[in-house]
Every structure is written in structure tokens, then in C-alpha cells.
């Protein structure tokens, strides 16, 4: 594979920097401005001088433009929102506390950043450190790129590279003024951060076993790369209302690429025509997790390889033209596909496709396919006989045979997706020594080495062990996936990484006594309902929520069961109930014990959970859902990975928790119960009854909130909704600080639905929305309590 270290020249792209500057007539682009060095540091000047001419010209120009924008923003000459979108499109995110405040467990305090009036976006202080997302298309990296990432993590971050659930690398605590140098150093080794965030095409992901998997139809790597290059900066992907994620899988059944949770997904397919085999893709559109998950719909059973980029472009144009722009919460393509139905969507795309002007790049990549054929650097060889017990455990869990005889795939389990700079550098050397010269990231936040010979496995193991990268947990229940959560994410509700770290340690101790069926379950955790941890497709999933217990707010996780990673993320789980964060490890233990005791012969974990049913399941976990009074166990009131009291209310602080149960809390509990019952009815296939109950649960939650102001609130749904609108929506009290009116809209949308005529899909979504509405009501109650 020759094309990784230096990308092919890109086609015509819209320079966002030039675009924004051109929009502002008041700004005169002078020669001197073009050469402004924003960081003003000697280091930044050296990198700029050293790397000029060593980057792809288009990328170099974009970074120069971005640097100019940075300077202009610092001088107050670019609007806040415009600069925010500009930096986001280069992967430079905000991070927790970047509004300059932090709650220390007792009170909210100013962090004290200098220049508090200088901002890099709405409510985002200039000097607050941010997160830098770095696109790694199809997860592929070469050793030179790994070494640069290690250096950047040391010099601009905290010496940690974090692998994300979409095969990116993220660095945290990065200062905005370091970003131009960081971008240049990446670009010089063929990596871009362009469109790593923002409303555009995000990282194009692919199965990390592509090209070596025994089950794949064909290697999707060149296609994923072609999609990345063609769409990067393409004018047709610049006007989306929301992000757009693309994935490629070589097979239909596995869990490696999770195509069906994506906005646009491709599964390799072949077809025989006139005695010849044609390559193409089963194409899916309109999937997505987020607050309300949607399964992608089958668009076409076979899109020929020479047409898949045309389809991608046509779909992009339709999404840009008809996708929601004003309401961010309904702006993903899944809503458009759902609103139109797949047939209308397909018709619109086909019409658009017929109007596109021919572009040679649609098929140019087909001439370069050979560049992506990885070639081993060594001859295949047989495995050595090794009796070392630790090696055998690692071999059994982390190594699988490739399609090519004598070669193996080695998975490296990264705890919480993290790897230090020193480890990354050492691993780069092992990539040179043992593989074909490339490594891949995976959606399970791990790394994958390929083309390791049988004869090298033991020595590779020894060298991995020497750098602490030989933990025998890849793809097991111990290998917990987690988003950043409250550690660094502005939206985090509970500590997903804290919990993941504790669970990993907890499960590792028992992993070798575990039943095989338990051992390979997938646990995935998100810090909030936005699903970056992909909990909907986990066997055991969690997402962060909070609950008010007396005068305290207690960190919880919503347990989500019944999802599946196999079949490309082919099934989504449903919420079971809120578990206090500190009870989650016991909950996982309980679920495992229940299965081992109660399973029938040959019954899988998922079949067992299905047979048990939600009611029985919840009953078995009910004691774990209780929060002990503060005086009995204050540890429940502090999240994992934290020492601060989670949050405290000024009202009644120090009073015995559990004594004060308000009318509001009674109402919310009742809503919770109704929502749960709606799920049970849903499972029995009575959709209209389930939908009606899900809607009722929302009304009950709204009614509960109203009781704070009016204990005599009406029992009539129409009257409840009117009062809810007046008291909570007009005043924006109910609006989520980040999601805005999203959850409020869902109750009014449900009010207009004909619940007697709902299908399975609509009912499932309504139950999800009901669940989220209730969570939002809980959060609203907490906010109101804290404000007194």
C-alpha cells in the first residue's frame, strides 16, 4: 500500500477560510495579514517555515487560511459563530469547563482564565483548552504517522492519544493557538483534521480486518479511501444541517464496521453478470444513534463499484437541499429518510443522480486499487509451540488467522482507548518489524496489526508485553468501550470513562473463570444520551443520567439491554431502568450470574434476556436501583473517577436524603413506570397500546413538573400540555442547556400522532422519545432545585 504517507492531490475544494473572509466585506485581506503568525511563537514560525511545501498544496493553503482566521478572531474581526464553525470543521472542539466555570462539589467557581472576554465561539473562552479530533480514514496509520501523533500528544496535549469509537484519534487539553502547527505537522505526513467535526462528512470508517478477513466479500479499503478523498472538502458536502457519517464493511454478518448505525453505509457485494463477477455494494442510508436511534434502511441491494461515489454525491446534495437546517435536533439524514420514506428518498436521489455532471474522479480510483493491496514483508511461517500460560491466554483472545495462510491478525486492547506517546512510538517500531507497515484503529477503540507471521507471534507478544500492550482482553467483556463523558465532554452527564475503568478492572479479575458466552459480551458506555459510546448496539449498554434523591443529585446510568453488534449493528437495545453509577459493577455481575444460573442448554445471553423479559429482568435488578441514604453510603453521591460530590442542591443541603420526596418526584417516578410498561407492551406486539402509554408517560412527567407550581394541575392531557407549554416552554425552563427545545418538541409531536395507527418502528421511536422526555424532566427538576 503506497498511498498512505502522502495523499493523492485533492480535487477542487471550497476553501472555508477564503469563503468566510470573502463573506466579510469589512475585512481587507492585505499581504501582511496573509503572513500573520497567530501563535506568535518562535516554535510556530519554525514549523511553518520548515513544513511549507511539504504538505499537499490544498491542505497547506487551508491551514494558512485557518491561521489567518484565528488571528482575525483574536482581533475581534470575525463573528463568533462563524469562527466556531470554522474551527469545528477542522476538528478543534470545545471541552468541558470552557465557559470558564467549574463546580467543585460545593459551589460553582470561576476557573480564572486570562482574557475572559476573548472567545473562540459562543460561550467558549479563548484560553480554555479544547479537544482536537484527527481523522484517520478507515483507521489506517503508518509508523511515521504514529510517531507524529505521539509527538503532538506530548507537545500540545498530555501525552495521551485517544482512539475513538469512529476510528479517529483525539487529543485533549489543546490550546487553540497551537492548532495551526499541529495541523501542519499532521498534513506533512498525510493526515488532515478537515471536517473531523462540523456539519459535514466525518471520518469514513471501515472494517479493520479489510483485506485479510476470511469472511469478507472483498477488501473495502480502496473504496473507503476513495470516498474519503472524493468527499473531503467537496462543495456538495459544505451545506449540511448536521454531520454525516459513512462506513464500509466487507461482510454482512460481523460487528466490525457497524454499517447500519451510519448515515450512509456500504456492505461489499458481488454479482455475476454475463459470466463475469462485478463488484458493488449493498447500500444503506438513514441510520444513526444519538438520542433516538434509527436503523439504516436498505437503499439498493447492489450499487456497482463505478457508481457508489455518484450515489454518495447525489445523496449529499439531497441532504444538503432538503435536510433540516433550523432545528439541529432533527437535522440528521435519518429524519429526512424517515419523514419521506425510503421510496421517495430513493426517487429523489435517482433524479439528482441523473442530473450530475460527469466527474472523472468517480472512477479514477479504480485504476489505483493496487496501491491498497498490503503486501507482507516476510514469508508466511508456522506458529511456534509455546507453553507460556500468559501467552496462550493472549493468543486465544487477541489473535485470529488471516485469510492468507501463515499470517495472523493481532488485536491490541487499549484500556479506554488510550495509549501514551511512549507506547505509540514503541508500537510504531513493532509495526515496522512485524506487520506490513500499517496498523488500524477499530470502532472498539483498539488497534489491529495485520500480516504477522505465525513464527513471529510469540516474539511480538513478548515485545508488546514489554510496552504493556499485551492485555489479553481484545473483543471481550473486559474491553469496555466508552466515550469521554464527564472527563472532558461538555455534554457528559455521568462519568463513562470512570465507570469503564472500574468495570475493566473489575471484570479483568474474573475474566478467565467466565463462561465463554459471558466472556465475549460487549459492554458499551456513553456519558449521556447522545450515544457516542454506541450503547444501543451493546449486549449490555449504559448511558449517563442523573436522579434527584432527597436534597442530592446522584449519578446514574440507564441500563440498555438487547442491542446487537453483529449484523453490522443489526439490533438496538431498549432502556431497562436507571442504575446508580456505583451499583453498575454489581449490576453487570448480577446479569452474568442470572444467565449462568438460568440459561437453558445452548441458550445465548441475548436469547436468555429475551426469554426473561423486561419485567422479570427489572425485578431481579430492583434492589440495585435503590440509592442508600447519604448518611449510610455517601460514596453513591460521588461519581466514578471523581472526588467531588456529584452536585448538591442549596435547598436542604445536609438534610437526610430520602426524606424529602416532592410531588414532582412522585410524578416523574410514575412517568418512569408508565414508560417501562409501554416497553413491555411493545414487546408483546401491541403497538398502539404501547404508543398510547408512552405518550401518557410523557404527559405524566409534564404533569409532575407542573406540580411544582400548581399542585392542582388538570388530569386532562390537552390541559396539561397547554400548561406545560406556558410554564416550561414559553419560559424555556424545560429547554436543555445544550439540546434546547428538542425534548419539549417530542411531546407536542406525540400529541399530534394518531396512536391507533402506529407501526413497530414508530412505536419504538415514540418509546425512546418518551424515555428521553422523562430524563429531560428529571434534569429540569434538578436545575430548578439548584436555582432555588
Amino acid at each position, binding site marked *: 500500500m503506497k498511498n498512505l504517507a502522502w495523499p493523492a492531490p485533492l480535487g477542487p475544494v471550497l476553501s472555508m477560510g477564503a469563503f468566510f473572509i470573502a463573506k466579510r466585506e469589512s475585512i481587507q485581506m492585505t499581504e501582511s495579514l496573509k503572513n500573520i503568525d497567530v501563535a506568535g*511563537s*518562535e*516554535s*510556530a514560525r*519554525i*514549523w511553518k517555515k*520548515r513544513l511549507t511545501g511539504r504538505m499537499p498544496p490544498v491542505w497547506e493553503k487551508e491551514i494558512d487560511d485557518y491561521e489567518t482566521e484565528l488571528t482575525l478572531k483574536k482581533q475581534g474581526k470575525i463573528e463568533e459563530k462563524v469562527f466556531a464553525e470554522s474551527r469545528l470543521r477542522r476538528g478543534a472542539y470545545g471541552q*468541558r*469547563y470552557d465557559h470558564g466555570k*467549574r463546580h*467543585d462539589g460545593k459551589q460553582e*467557581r470561576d*476557573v*480564572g*482564565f*486570562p482574557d475572559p472576554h476573548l472567545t473562540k465561539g459562543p460561550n467558549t473562552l479563548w*484560553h*480554555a*483548552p479544547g479537544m482536537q479530533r484527527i481523522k484517520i480514514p478507515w483507521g489506517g496509520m503508518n509508523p511515521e504517522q504514529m*510517531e507524529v501523533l505521539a*509527538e503532538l500528544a*506530548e*507537545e500540545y496535549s*498530555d*501525552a*495521551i492519544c485517544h482512539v475513538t469509537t469512529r476510528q479517529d484519534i483525539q487529543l*485533549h*487539553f489543546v*490550546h487553540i493557538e497551537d492548532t495551526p*502547527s499541529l495541523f501542519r505537522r499532521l498534513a506533512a505526513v498525510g493526515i488532515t483534521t478537515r471536517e473531523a467535526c462540523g456539519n459535514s462528512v466525518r471520518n469514513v470508517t471501515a472494517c479493520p480486518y479489510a483485506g485479510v478477513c476470511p469472511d469478507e466479500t472483498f477488501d473495502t479499503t480502496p473504496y473507503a479511501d476513495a470516498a474519503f478523498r472524493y468527499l473531503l472538502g467537496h462543495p456538495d458536502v459544505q451545506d449540511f444541517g448536521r454531520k454525516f457519517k459513512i462506513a464500509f464493511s466487507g461482510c454482512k454478518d460481523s460487528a466490525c464496521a457497524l454499517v447500519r448505525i451510519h448515515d450512509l453505509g456500504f456492505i461489499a457485494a458481488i454479482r455475476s453478470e454475463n459470466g463475469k463477477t462485478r463488484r458493488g455494494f449493498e447500500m444503506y442510508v438513514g441510520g444513526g444513534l444519538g438520542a433516538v436511534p434509527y436503523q439504516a434502511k436498505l437503499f439498493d441491494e447492489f450499487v456497482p463499484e463505478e457508481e457508489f461515489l455518484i450515489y454518495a454525491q447525489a445523496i449529499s446534495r439531497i441532504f444538503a437541499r432538503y435536510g433540516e437546517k433550523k432545528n439541529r435536533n432533527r437535522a440528521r439524514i435519518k429524519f429526512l429518510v424517515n419523514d419521506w420514506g425510503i421510496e421517495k428518498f430513493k426517487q429523489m436521489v435517482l433524479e439528482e443522480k441523473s442530473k450530475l455532471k460527469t466527474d472523472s474522479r468517480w472512477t479514477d480510483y479504480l485504476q489505483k486499487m493496487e496501491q491498497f493491496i498490503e503486501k507482507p514483508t516476510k514469508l508466511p511461517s508456522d506458529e511456534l509451540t509455546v507453553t507460556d500460560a500468559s501467552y496462550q491466554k493472549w493468543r486465544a483472545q487477541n489473535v485470529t488467522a488471516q485469510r492468507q495462510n501463515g499470517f495472523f491478525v493481532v488485536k491490541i486492547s487499549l*484500556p*479506554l482507548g*488510550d*495509549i*501514551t*506517546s*511512549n*507506547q505509540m*512510538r*514503541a508500537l510504531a517500531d513493532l509495526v515496522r518489524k512485524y506487520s506490513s507497515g500499517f496498523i488500524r484503529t477499530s470502532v472498539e477503540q483498539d488497534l489491529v496489526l495485520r500480516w504477522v507471521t505465525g513464527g513471529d507471534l510469540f516474539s511480538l507478544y513478548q515485545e508488546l508485553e514489554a*510496552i*504493556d500492550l499485551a492485555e489479553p482482553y481484545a473483543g471481550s467483556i473486559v474491553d469496555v468501550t466508552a466515550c469521554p463523558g464527564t*472527563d*472532558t465532554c461538555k455534554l457528559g452527564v455521568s462519568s463513562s*470513562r*470512570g465507570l469503564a*475503568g472500574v468495570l*475493566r*478492572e473489575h471484570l479483568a479479575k474474573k475474566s478467565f473463570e467466565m463462561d465463554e458466552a459471558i466472556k465475549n459480551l460487549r459492554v458499551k458506555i456513553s456519558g449521556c444520551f447522545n450515544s457516542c459510546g454506541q450503547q444501543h448496539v451493546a449486549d449490555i449498554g449504559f448511558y449517563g443520567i442523573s436522579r434527584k434523591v432527597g436534597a442530592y443529585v446522584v449519578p446514574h446510568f440507564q441500563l440498555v439491554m438487547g442491542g446487537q453488534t453483529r449484523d453490522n449493528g443489526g439490533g438496538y437495545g431498549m432502556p431497562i431502568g436507571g442504575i446508580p453509577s456505583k451499583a453498575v459493577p454489581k449490576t453487570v455481575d448480577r446479569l452474568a450470574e442470572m444467565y449462568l444460573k438460568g440459561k437453558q442448554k445452548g441458550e445465548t445471553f441475548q436469547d436468555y434476556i429475551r426469554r426473561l423479559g423486561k419485567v422479570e429482568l427489572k425485578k431481579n435488578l430492583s434492589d440495585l436501583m435503590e440509592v442508600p441514604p447519604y448518611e449510610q453510603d455517601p460514596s453513591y453521591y460521588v461519581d466514578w*473517577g471523581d*472526588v*467531588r460530590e456529584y452536585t448538591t442542591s442549596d435547598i436542604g443541603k445536609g438534610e437526610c436524603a430520602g426524606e424529602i420526596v416532592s410531588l414532582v418526584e412522585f410524578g416523574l417516578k410514575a412517568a418512569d413506570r408508565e414508560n417501562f410498561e409501554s416497553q413491555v407492551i411493545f414487546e408483546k406486539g401491541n403497538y398502539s397500546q404501547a404508543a398510547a402509554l408512552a405518550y401518557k408517560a410523557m404527559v405524566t412527567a409534564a404533569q409532575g413538573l407542573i406540580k411544582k407550581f400548581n399542585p392542582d394541575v388538570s388530569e386532562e392531557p390537552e390541559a396539561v400540555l397547554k400548561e406545560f407549554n406556558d410554564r416550561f416552554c414559553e419560559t424555556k425552563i424545560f429547554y436543555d442547556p445544550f439540546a434546547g427545545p428538542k425534548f419539549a418538541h417530542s411531546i407536542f409531536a406525540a400529541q399530534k400522532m394518531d396512536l391507533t395507527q402506529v407501526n413497530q418502528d414508530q412505536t419504538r421511536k415514540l418509546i425512546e422519545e418518551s424515555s428521553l422526555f422523562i430524563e429531560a424532566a428529571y434534569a429540569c427538576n434538578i436545575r430548578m432545585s439548584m436555582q432555588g
Partner: protein
Amino acid sequence: MNLQKINWRIFFKDPAEARPDDFFRVFNTWIPDSPEIFIDVADYQHVHDGPLTVLIGHFADYALDETDRRRGLLYSCKRSLEGDTGDKIRTTLASVLKAADRLVKDPFFEGRLHFLTNELELIINDRAIAPNEDETFSALSPDLNRVMKSLYGEGGYQFNHLKNPKKRFAVRIASTKTFSLPELIQKI
């Protein structure tokens, strides 16, 4: 050479006593009451050969660190420093020594924490300004010598330039003399 991003490491006498959970707890107490700007504490005790617990600051980070398999306190200056090279070396070294002294005196550790005061490591966390080459060492040595002389006395120390070209410029300073942290702080 306009040195910025100066890092220092000072190592523990008994590394087992320097536990990440303890540092996580203690660093959190530094956030509200410190004249420095501190933002949060990051927990990385699940990884190896790098930071374990990091107190993230605006001007500087402080970390319980195990890079290169040695557990120590790492001070990482992140923003621009004033003065000449000698001033910058002196200022940053004073910061790490004071932080080490604060940790030693923290009642939470109950006197269990001790530092090796006869060994220091200087890292320049900027490959553009300070490539890990002999030239950088030659350029830096006079100023570093002046500071170390004031600390350990004439002939009381040795420099070892850590020459791995893939790693940042670093110098290990070993002294034949041992002083207490307060004594070193007074000398600096």
C-alpha cells in the same frame, strides 16, 4: 534560543508510596485555593509509560508521571515565559520544587512521600526550538550550569544528555550532594 515549554521531573524515593488515587484526591484540593489557574484533574492510571494523574493548568500542568518507567512529579510549563534562558530555567525549577514540597507537606500523605533531591530531569517540550541534538545541549549548558551551580555547588553535579533522537530534548542532572526540598528552594 527562546526557550518555552520547559518541563522538569523529580523522582520519588519510594515510588510505591506515590499512588495515583491519592494524587487524584490531593490535586483536586489544589484547584479552588491556588493562585495558579487549574482547570481539572485527568486520571490516566489505566495506561503505562506516561502520565498517571494530571492536574491540568493554564500556565502549567503537574502530573504524577511514569514516563520511561520511572515514577516522578512532572511539571510542564505550557505558556510563554519571560526573561532570559537562565531566568526561565530558574523559575520553572522553583515551581516544581515548591510543588514537590507542597505534596510532601500535605497531611493526606502522612509523611510517606519523599523525593530524590539529588536527581532532576529537564525536558524541553518543543522539538522545533530544541531538537534533541548536541547543538541544543551546547547552547543550553552555560545557563543550566549557572542554575545548577547555585543549587548543588561547583562540581557538585553531572549532566547526562538523553540522546534518543525520537524523544524530546532532555538532560538528567545527578548530584553527589543531597539537600532537603526547602534547602533547594532557598538556593534557587
